[in-house]
């Protein structure tokens, strides 16, 4: 009964000349669970956002089953509302429910049943009861969403999509915030929906789940379509190698950086630290002169760990030591005083002050060490120019606004700001995100030089070739705990990814 309900053919999409998707194919049968998998940035979200009308596609065709004739017909999905009308719904990791409204109100928002021009609350209540039954949810339709757990909210979202006669349901990492028991309930709901003929696109990084509930699996890599397989006819190794692909130049880079030197001095160490709601304890050591590459997929807790080290999030359990001495870090100010600096993964949000000059941004942290009044102007210029030259920032002068620079140059300015503080421990969260190839290589050289000069470096990255190329030691996280911690000697992308998925 492999009756097709959806075909996406040769879908391409670019954002400001960067190709995100190139000729991607995806199809969906009635009542199946089709898993969509790929590394961070492989294009899964973009493909689904095109299907739900969030982004317009540049090229390609979307065919959807006509409800009357049962035939596939080309359609346009110009906006999210059109997707909902066609029965295509997406449940996001972060639910979009309105906290201070009831479950029934949330489910019917925008489509409230009316009688004589007034809200038909009774119909709304009764229909909600029916919908909640379908998602195994035993709560009152009049309960406030703010009183629900994460799992219950997710089920309400699913019920909401069913209320629009949803026939295609997209679940984005639905189990990432669920307990084991809640996962079981979700899977039971999915099985029910399948039996009712609802087709499900299931995005997840958790290998074991895919084999449990998936019917077919499609792998994307760097915005291209790699292949679609029957779950029953494949195995974990095959999927991992499809996700990574064979790239000669990268395997050559599979360097022996791990053999570089013997480290003696532990610069930074954390013991028994827990991340967010995860229970496992994290132990991590970084030596002077060492580059530790931290890999983990979205939701693994890697950025959260970095934020604990930098005092953005309070440390709940465990201790942090610098050069053997226990230190307390309650805010970034203290972290900086202890010689710890962080380059944020979100440059725009946390990295720089928009509209201000390159110089003002570079010296922002350094100002406290300069004289209080303006005669430091010359000093400031000297510092800014020094780092602009060292890091090869391409700009007309230090007075140019940072907002007018390219991503790579903005990143160099933010890095300059941190380096000006001369930290001993550098945490670089996605240092080459949104940076072009040329600037990438330059940033790698900077990182090598910093390690050479004795700094301890923790580099967080979602880019496997980058991890292998830059790191002396590779640490892999999954669900808030460390799954692998090895010197970068004869490591492969497969091995790292498998640890991250386990």
């Amino acid at each position, binding site marked *: 009964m492999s009756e097709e309900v959806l075909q996406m053919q040769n879908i391409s999409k670019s954002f400001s000349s960067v190709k995100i998707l190139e000729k991607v194919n995806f199809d969906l049968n009635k009542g199946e669970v089709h898993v969509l998998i790929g590394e961070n940035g492989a294009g899964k979200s973009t493909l689904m956002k095109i299907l739900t009308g969030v982004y317009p596609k540049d090229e390609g065709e979307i065919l959807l089953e006509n409800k009357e004739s049962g035939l596939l017909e080309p359609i346009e999905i110009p906006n999210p509302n059109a997707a909902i009308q066609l029965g295509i719904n997406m449940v996001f990791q972060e639910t979009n429910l309105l906290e201070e409204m009831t479950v029934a109100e949330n489910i019917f928002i925008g489509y409230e049943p009316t009688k004589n021009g007034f809200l038909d609350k009774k119909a709304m209540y009764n229909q909600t009861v029916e919908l909640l039954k379908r998602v195994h949810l035993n709560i009152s339709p009049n309960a406030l969403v703010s009183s629900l757990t994460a799992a219950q909210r997710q089920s309400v979202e699913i019920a909401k999509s069913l209320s629009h006669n949803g026939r295609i349901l997209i679940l984005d990492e639905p189990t990432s915030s669920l307990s084991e028991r809640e996962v079981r309930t979700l899977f039971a709901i999915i099985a029910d929906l399948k039996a009712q003929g609802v087709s499900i696109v299931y995005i997840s990084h958790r290998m074991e789940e895919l084999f449990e509930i998936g019917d077919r699996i499609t792998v994307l890599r760097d915005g291209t379509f790699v292949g679609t397989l029957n779950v029953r006819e494949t195995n974990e190794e095959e999927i991992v190698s499809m996700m990574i692909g064979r790239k000669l130049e990268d395997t050559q880079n599979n360097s022996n950086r791990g053999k570089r030197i013997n480290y003696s001095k532990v610069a930074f160490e954390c013991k028994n630290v827990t991340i967010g709601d995860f229970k496992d304890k994290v132990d991590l050591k970084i030596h002077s002169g060492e580059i530790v590459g931290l890999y983990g997929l979205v939701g693994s807790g890697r950025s959260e760990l970095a934020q604990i080290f930098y005092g953005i999030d309070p440390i709940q359990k465990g201790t942090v030591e610098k050069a053997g001495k226990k230190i307390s870090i309650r805010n970034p100010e203290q972290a900086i005083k202890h010689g710890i600096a962080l380059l944020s993964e979100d440059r725009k949000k946390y990295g720089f002050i928009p509209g201000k000059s390159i110089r003002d941004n570079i010296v922002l942290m350094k*100002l406290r060490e300069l004289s209080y009044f303006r005669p430091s102007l010359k000093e400031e210029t000297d510092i800014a120019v020094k780092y602009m030259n060292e890091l090869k920032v391409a700009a007309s002068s230090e007075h140019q606004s940072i907002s007018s620079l390219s991503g790579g140059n903005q990143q160099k300015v933010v890095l300059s700001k941190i380096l000006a503080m001369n930290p001993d421990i550098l945490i670089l969260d996605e240092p080459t995100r949104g940076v072009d190839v040329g600037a990438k290589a330059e940033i790698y050289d900077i990182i090598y030089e910093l390690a050479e000069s004795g700094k301890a470096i923790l580099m967080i990255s979602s880019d496997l070739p980058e991890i292998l190329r830059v790191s002396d030691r590779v640490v892999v996280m999954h669900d808030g705990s460390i799954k692998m911690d090895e010197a970068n000697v004869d490591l492969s992308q497969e091995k790292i990814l498998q640890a991250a998925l386990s």
Partner: protein
Amino acid sequence: MAQQVLANKTKETIDISSEQAKLIKKNKRKEILRQFSLLSILVLLIILFSVTTASFFSVDNFTNILRQVAVTTIAAIGVFMIILLGDIDLSVGSLYALIGVMAAFVWQGTGNTVLTLLTALAAGAIIGFGNGFITAKGKIPAFVTTLATMGIARGIAYIVTSGSPIGIVEPGFTIFGTGYVGGIIPVPVVIMIVVFILGSILINNTRFGRYIYAVGGNAQASHWSGLNTNKIRIIVFTIAGLLYGLSSIILAGRLGGALPTAGQGAEMDAITAVILGGTSLSGGKGKISGVLIGCLIIGVLNNGLDLIGLSSYWQQVIKGIIIIAAVLYDTKSKNKN
């Protein structure tokens, strides 16, 4: 200095198209033009009123205008710093009333001029600190905090005075409102100039001034850069409160006492001047010189329209139109960038 830097650089670092360079130049020109256009509006108004009325263009009237704008300008410099942070203060006018009343009570009780002045300044600073503390630590929007203190301050001023004025008949005090330095320059104008100079130094020439712009430009990035954004916010509100205290002294000095009704709508005058001066309400952008010009524009407008004989109702209408025109111009020039 820019050329020197350019010369220092290796060729590969100067990887910038001539188009981009042109754009930067163009933006710089625009910024100068903007400052200039603000000034030219002021000059235009002065010419307009000089031609249409007989009594506008005289030393006496100009001195008069300056004295009239002094109270607003001093407070507006405080409001300017708050808006630069991306916050707002609605409590200015009510604080005039409460601070004035407190000072008047101290005067009645002690008869000590110095103590009266210190009370006014301290009261302003403490209430400002409270506004900043609640906003920063409570993570409450400044709009809400100061909306509340606006009501509280005005209410207390009425309660403790039962709605009637309290006189401060002491030449040592009223001199701040009505006196002259050297027989020509009004004392309020001298205070205004001193505050403006000190404010300019703080904003443009100190580390703290730079921090205000940074927090207003991107509070999160500032926090991640190790700035204590709460402390910065609290200090700015405290300084602003101190300036309101100063304005209150001048106002009470001019009126010869404290009124619970004093300063009705003063916050709007200050905010209007700051916006007219080109300060972005979203924070991080603005010049203190713009505040002064903004205040002068409003002062000239009030004075000139009075002389023409336009009713105060019409004056409000015209001021409103000018605000919309100024902000429209501002957003339009921003969008072009």
